[in-house]
């Protein structure tokens, strides 16, 4: 089918949203992104969590972390900066107090995690992957908000490779590596972690940025720099998903960055993502994923695409220009 040929529209109910990510079935490609969903409970009063494709927890570290001083967030053009400082309850409290709630929801549960050094990453992967109800681990190697170490894990392919291999070896569940857009070559990073046994990659985490209050001559965040999220980063996220999908067509990708509508989600699928995560949009609209899911279903139906699976990676090149001829 050529990209321009009008396809016959379908009934929205006929569209199949189910996808497979690294061999695991999901009801829909839409997941809640890490750090934007906490551990889920708060959303139960606003929406039916069972209708999500899945969810990714706040990043968990071996020990609890208290996070950064205030102010931790500020709004920017079509986005926001955050430097929460990876505040979390730690592995033990997560497994005991948070996981039981998530396990009962009947949706894919991905547990995001990180360490402060090599050993704590591996320790975290070993323990979290044995949690009852954990479907996959999402390994955060970006860590823009922790100062000690961290940076090389997300930016140097050889280091990411070693770390991924060590975590995959001890993990009882597939590991999806969440890549940092702050790395020089995101394709090289994806390749390095794929070769180390990653089941897929999540692309992208926040992009490091800053904002200044000119009246007080102070940075708007206590840590000066923070991670940019929201629609402002979507074009960059799409480009990175597309580059990785082209270079590594068999590596499952979870696309993330500024998704606010069904059309945004479909862009990520067409660029080559298998699942799509929604983050910042959940703050203003806790039920955003339900709306986006419906919009995606309607849009696929309108475009005559019978399933979410059929949309993955179907991006077509623009037609070539006619060659220049002398008049």
């Amino acid at each position: 089918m050529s990209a321009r040929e009008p396809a016959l529209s379908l009934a929205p109910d006929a569209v199949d949203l189910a996808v497979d990510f690294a061999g695991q079935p999901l009801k829909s490609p839409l997941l809640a992104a890490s750090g934007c969903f906490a551990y889920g409970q708060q959303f139960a009063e606003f929406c039916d969590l069972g209708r999500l494709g899945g969810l990714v927890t706040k990043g968990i570290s071996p020990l609890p972390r208290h996070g950064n001083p205030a102010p931790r967030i500020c709004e920017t053009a079509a986005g926001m900066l955050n430097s929460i400082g990876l505040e979390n309850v730690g592995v033990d409290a997560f497994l005991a107090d948070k996981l039981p709630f998530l396990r009962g929801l009947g949706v894919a549960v991905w547990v995001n995690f990180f360490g402060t050094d090599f050993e704590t990453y591996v320790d975290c992967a070993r323990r979290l992957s044995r949690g009852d109800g954990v479907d996959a681990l999402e390994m955060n190697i970006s860590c823009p908000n922790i100062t000690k170490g961290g940076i090389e894990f997300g930016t140097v392919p050889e280091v990411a490779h070693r770390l991924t291999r060590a975590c995959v070896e001890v993990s009882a569940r597939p590991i999806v590596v969440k890549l940092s857009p702050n790395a020089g070559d995101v394709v090289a990073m994806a390749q390095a972690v794929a070769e180390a046994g990653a089941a897929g990659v999540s692309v992208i985490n926040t992009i490091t940025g800053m904002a200044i209050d000119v009246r007080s001559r102070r940075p708007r965040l206590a840590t000066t720099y923070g991670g940019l999220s929201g629609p402002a980063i979507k074009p960059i996220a799409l480009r990175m998903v597309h580059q990785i999908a082209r270079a590594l067509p068999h590596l499952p990708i979870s696309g993330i960055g500024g998704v606010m509508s069904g059309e945004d989600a479909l862009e990520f699928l067409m660029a080559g993502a298998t699942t799509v995560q929604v983050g910042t949009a959940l703050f203003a609209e806790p039920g955003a994923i339900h709306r986006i899911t419906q919009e995606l279903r309607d849009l696929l139906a309108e475009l005559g695409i019978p399933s979410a699976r059929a949309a993955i990676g179907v991006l077509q090149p623009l037609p070539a220009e006619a060659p220049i001829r002398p008049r």
Partner: protein
Amino acid sequence: MPAAHFTAATAANRALGGGYFVLELEAAEDTPVGAAQPGHFVMLRGEWGRDLLNPRAFSVLAAPSARRFAILGKIHGRGTARLGALRVGERVAVTGPLGRPFLSPRPGTTQLLIAGGVGLPPLHMQARVAAAAGLHTAVELLYGGRSAQDLVLLDQARDFGVRLHLATEDGSVGHRGFITGPLLARLDRAREAAESVELLACGPTPMLAAVRRIALDRDIPAQLCLEENMACGFGVCLGCAVPVHGPRPYAYCCTDGPVFDAREVRWP
């Protein structure tokens, strides 16, 4: 209290001068905001597309019915400017009621409600609720602003029958200077009369810091309603950290507050 996310339509939007406005929103059905207590807040966002991404926090001013509630806004930046310009019928997404409210007045203790500028709404509501419960003598409103036009909704406050103490920095109404002047005088009288008092305060951070100092120095219980930048308002982004004493260095303004015990807040 359970919260809801819903769409409401602008039922009225009244400019009060000085950038203040009272925005009344009405939902098609009953919502839990109808049961909001003083200090509860809502997150509001108009139909702003991909711009001004996060909703804005506002204390509930009044909830006259289970479908309708009002906020008192003051134009600060782009979000409040857009809310202040809403026309009747225009829609707003609402999440609420959120946070932990002020403690209710109790017989035998006088609550001194200390409001600075746009910190008025939760205390105005506290006075309204107290008056409705026949406790108008158990609360007094101390209200300060820059000048006369910063003191709004005074007629309503007078109708509650609660005692009012006013202060303006330019002296155009009431005591000339900060509201802490009348507060100290009132506390001296309370001490002489061995009257039991507690402080409830909402307003600019320097005012809250001054009230906190006074409360700690004189060993008077005080509840402070704080503001922090918020993305979600319901405890998931962890953006609204407030430094506190105790086992954890930070609490969250949106779920642990916005009302905090003055002794708990870890300020210099």
